[in-house]
């Protein structure tokens, strides 16, 4: 590496690591915030799910049919099943939260009516009334269970209900289900985090230097413009990578809390997060390529901008397009097999990440992505060099 490029990189790093506020907001805060927010959300969701799990709920049934009694009786250990008429006063008490119950009113001679339905009722169906208060989590759970039993009862046959322990009808493994989920969520999250890292520093580093007049001081030194361009892009990529890593750690630590299911002891195993060393190497390579291309693109737009504010305005639409590209894996089944796709900057990284997280790693697309991104970065360095040489771009007012 040329020495002046290294001097610029050192200066950009000194600027970044010497500014505690910038360091905190760019590297530490994203990961910390993501961890706190996702953890709080996870805890909140978990709390909603588990709240009232130990509460005793009364299931009061009027005209309990014989066919239903054993089903209701076996529902839940924290459920007290009582056979009593349901009155309007009981319903009012439910509304006022004075009783913790689910009230079910069957029509008289329910079983007989159902069996002899065609003769006695024609096409009319027997009406079962269920009263509950949905603000009570435990009661809501019981309501769901009762609805399910009634729904199943309503059918003349059962569908996909395992009859023996270990029997399953869905042939997807936990691992492949987890991989499918990760491949749809993580590429977008990683791209977003990396882009946020670039956005936090690149406009200030180039448009900011124009705005403050410090770029001209650099331009009157004998340093070649391509050394300056390369130094800027490499240092920005490095810093953005740190920011991306911070965000990734935040996601990795908080996602198990976010998606954890009650009773699961091994969150990682539960989520099917089983990846090989090759997967991690491919992921690291593609992340490196992504930050290079992002730093290049944002640097070019920042160099065109008059000041930091203008740079932000110019980069925002571009960021939205990249974010939209990040959403595409949600609407497709695995990574693309068309090699031409891997020549499209940004989208190629998303596709490779999708392949890695889907356990479909193929090194050819990885190599194509890396090579094309390096070529695009070289082109960006060349264009940025031309921009540093252009008085219209550098000194436009």
């Amino acid at each position, binding site marked *: 590496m040329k020495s002046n490029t290294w001097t610029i990189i050192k200066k950009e790093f000194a600027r970044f690591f010497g500014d505690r506020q910038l360091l905190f907001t760019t590297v530490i805060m994203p990961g910390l915030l993501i961890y706190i927010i996702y953890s709080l959300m996870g805890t909140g969701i978990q709390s909603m799910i588990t709240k009232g799990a130990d509460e005793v709920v009364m299931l009061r049934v009027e005209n309990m049919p014989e066919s239903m009694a054993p089903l209701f009786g076996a529902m839940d250990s924290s459920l007290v099943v009582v056979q009593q008429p349901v009155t309007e006063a009981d319903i009012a008490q439910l509304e006022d939260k004075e009783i913790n119950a689910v009230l079910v009113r069957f029509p008289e001679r329910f079983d007989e009516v159902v069996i002899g339905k065609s003769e006695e009722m024609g096409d009319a169906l027997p009406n079962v009334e269920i009263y509950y208060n949905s603000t009570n989590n435990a009661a809501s759970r019981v309501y769901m269970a009762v609805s399910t039993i009634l729904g199943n009862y309503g059918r003349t046959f059962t569908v996909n209900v395992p009859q023996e322990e270990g029997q399953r009808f869905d042939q997807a493994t936990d691992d492949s289900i987890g991989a499918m989920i990760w491949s749809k969520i993580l590429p977008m999250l990683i791209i977003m985090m990396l882009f946020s890292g670039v956005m936090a520093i690149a406009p200030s580093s180039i448009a900011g230097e124009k705005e403050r007049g410090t770029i001209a001081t650099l331009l009157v030194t*004998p340093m070649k413009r391509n050394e300056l361009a390369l130094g800027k892009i490499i240092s920005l990529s490095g810093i953005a990578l740190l920011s991306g890593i911070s965000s990734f750690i935040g996601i990795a630590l908080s996602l198990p809390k976010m998606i954890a299911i009650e009773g699961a002891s091994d969150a990682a195993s539960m989520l099917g997060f089983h990846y090989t060393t090759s997967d991690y190497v491919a992921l690291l390579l593609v992340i490196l390529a992504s930050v290079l291309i992002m730093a290049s693109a944002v640097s070019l737009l920042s160099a065109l901008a008059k000041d930091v504010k203008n740079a932000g305005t110019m980069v925002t639409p571009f960021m939205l397009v990249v974010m939209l590209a990040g959403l595409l894996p949600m609407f497709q089944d695995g990574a693309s097999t068309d090699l031409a796709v891997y020549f499209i900057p940004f989208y190629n990284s998303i596709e490779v990440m999708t392949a890695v997280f889907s356990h479909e790693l193929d090194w050819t697309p990885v190599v194509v992505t890396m090579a094309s991104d390096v070529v695009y970065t070289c082109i960006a360095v060349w264009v940025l060099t031309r921009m540093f040489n252009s008085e219209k771009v550098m000194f436009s007012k």
Partner: protein
Amino acid sequence: MEEILKVEGLSKTFTLSRKQQKIERTTAKRKVAVDNLTFSAVRGEIFGLLGPNGAGKTTTLRMLSTLIKPDGGDAELDGCSVVRQPEQVRGKIGFLTSELKLEDFFTPNYLFDFFSQLHGVDPNTTAERKERMFKRFGIDKFAEVKVANLSTGMKQKLSLVISLVHDPEVIIFDEPTNGLDVLTARTVTDYLQELRGEGKTIILSTHIFSLVERLCDRVGIIIDGRLVACGALSDVCNGLTIEDRFFELYKEVKGGEE
């Protein structure tokens, strides 16, 4: 006397944006900032470009320092063309103008080392030169203070020192005393004379007559982008003060308009 700077037919035209047209109160889409400028400077002299605001002084100096490219003509600085060899030219000059700023975040110590590295100065020379120049300008006491916390005068002195980290043969100063307090201005002008004594060539632009009279060996008067007089101060003045001579020339060019 060896000519270290040769300027031949240097020209620059700017395209005016609509906003600039409004400011300049003109409908013309182009403005000739520098028109066929030819002059030279010899080693060990102070050459002054004197002219009113907007005359083309700064544009000329920016072309000499390779920040902008001329549309026509060329300038050779110590044998290197500003058009064809801009990097070599930048290695030979020290350029100081109010538009060049130093990053507030860094200390004088860091900036001196940083710019020395960019100019390819070896570490030992950097250390020796830094100690000498920091002491000369009283920066040594503030060497570890961030630029943001320095006084305006100290920032100006630091900018001067940073522009000279590589001990250039030619020093180009755009309005060297503009915005300086009297003490700092005196320090700067004294130092320019010291540099001349060391055999350095100084090209400066100014609109201050007294500065030309006190410092310059030769002067070029520039009005509306054209050099209307150039030579030794006594020759240009022709028995008048520089101020009177300037207004005489100004009236000739502008036809009595002031």
